[in-house]
């Protein structure tokens, strides 16, 4: 008799515990999803930039997903790089303008052809490679698709996919 009630209590305890755990997992998942970015935020993730009017060695800053995008048309005497976006004869640096260290926006020093991040002194060359300081990797290249003289950010075109396959985007 005594054993019997004990067994029944254990069973009730386990059943209750199981349901609580299940409910808890469900609640946690709901909480996680509530904290996720909204669909409208995700949908606003495309931007088109026209590159035909770009001036050599002048940095243009566009905005994509709230982040600054550096667009720099390379002058003829500047080094080209496999990370360049090529359109006809023109080479462009297209990169997310946030320092890969902690996300400050580096400034472009035109005469020295380099970017300098004021936050912790990191530096990048005109192709986005880190050349000094704490940044651990080059400036990131956003997903892009070339469309005539236009660039669609947020969509992966064949050029971007190739870069990505070669591991050049970050």
């Amino acid at each position, binding site marked *: 008799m005594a054993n019997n009630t004990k067994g029944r209590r254990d069973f009730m305890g386990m059943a209750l515990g199981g349901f609580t755990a299940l409910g808890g997992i469900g609640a946690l998942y709901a909480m996680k999803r509530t*904290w*996720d*970015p*909204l669909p409208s*935020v995700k949908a606003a*993730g495309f931007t088109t930039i026209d590159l035909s009017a770009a001036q050599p060695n002048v940095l243009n*800053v566009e*905005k994509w*997903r*709230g*982040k*600054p995008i550096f667009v720099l048309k390379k002058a003829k005497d500047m080094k080209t790089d496999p990370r360049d976006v090529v359109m006809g004869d023109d080479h462009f640096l297209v990169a997310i303008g946030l320092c890969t*260290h*902690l*996300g*400050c*926006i580096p400034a472009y020093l035109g005469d020295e052809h380099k970017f300098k991040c*004021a*936050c*912790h*002194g990191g530096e990048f060359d005109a192709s986005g490679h880190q050349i000094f300081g*704490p*940044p*651990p990797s080059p400036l990131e290249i956003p997903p892009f698709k070339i469309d005539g003289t236009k660039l669609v950010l947020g969509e992966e075109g064949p050029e971007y996919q190739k870069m990505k396959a070669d591991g050049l985007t*970050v």
Partner: protein
Amino acid sequence: MAHFDENAKPFSQKWLDERLAVSTLKRVLQTEYWIPKNINFLWAMGMVLAATFGILLVSGIFLLMYYKPDTNLAFDSVNYTIMSEVGYGWLWRHIHGVGASVVFLIIYIHMFVGIYYGSYKRGRELIWLSGMLLFVTFSAEAFSGYMLPWGQMSYWAGMVITNLFSGGSLEAYGLVEWIRGDYVPGDAFLTRFFMLHVLLLPLAIIGLIVLHFGTLRLPHVNNQDGEEIDFEEAAELYKAGKVKESKVIPFSPVFLSKDVFVMGVYFIFFFYLVFYHFEFAMDPVNFDPADGLKTPAHIYPEWYFLWSYEILRPFSKDLGLIAFGIAQVIFFALPFLDRSPNVAPASRRGLFKYWFWAMLIDMIILTFMGKLPPTDALFANIGLIAALTFFALWIALPIITKKEKKL
């Protein structure tokens, strides 16, 4: 509840006692909560903190009535509506801003007093741990509050701090975007930090304060000499009228009067700051509205985070992150890293005396270096050395305290 006195008048002492046990409560929390006699004004910092938290709560409630958690409206709701339209709105803001800054000064004093007198040691470990939990929660509270005016420093501090969660080379940007609810700090970010700042974290803080007080009630508060007092015996003496001979006094009203005096002095200082020097708690950069396309020339946190920010800086990204992470939690381990059984002021202990002052000075140096721009090589090197010293001290702690002779 065995006996109810039928004749007790409603709300009389007796009537309340039978329903609320007010006398028992008073005894446990006030008149027979024994406090050692030999403690100095530094022990009043706990009550000073509680009072400051109360002030932050009240001023926060008044700010809450006009603040708008929306990226388009937040900046003006603070800098225009509250500051110049709302009657005395400026007062609440200055109180809140100064309070948020000063509360950390007092927390640091409270912490270092505890370290100096060994109040984290055997029997009191949980006081220390709950106190450190409070410190961390206060830090989160301060950070989330700093976001709300949505100025340039708010935005960029939000950017930099949330980027820390990418875990260096782990590149966990999905996690960062999840925390922000957007690709960059935006509306979702602002409203969730608003929620954290006004509801969830204050709630946690209140709970932790209760826990912190609870952990203190039984082991009793430490004293200036680290003396082990037999509280029951001493309490008997006191109750028998031998007040002079007894080593303890009741918390209320005797010790509380000292607390209140210290608080009085503190509030003179506090309101002096509120009325004449509030600008020290207001970064000028934060009076520019947030702009996601322009970084301020030099990003630094408020003064109370500078030391740990400086530990992050001189190393490479991953190493810096690890160092930073350790610096955030290492103080939790203090009761377990200090191997000496001595509960005594640092001045009477062995090498620990030097350890204490070295740690304090090192953290002050880190604080100064954290404020300076990182571009200067000399300062960067001092920062690096100070950061290395910080870790060296923690590694040395168990060794030097193990060697310490028993007093």
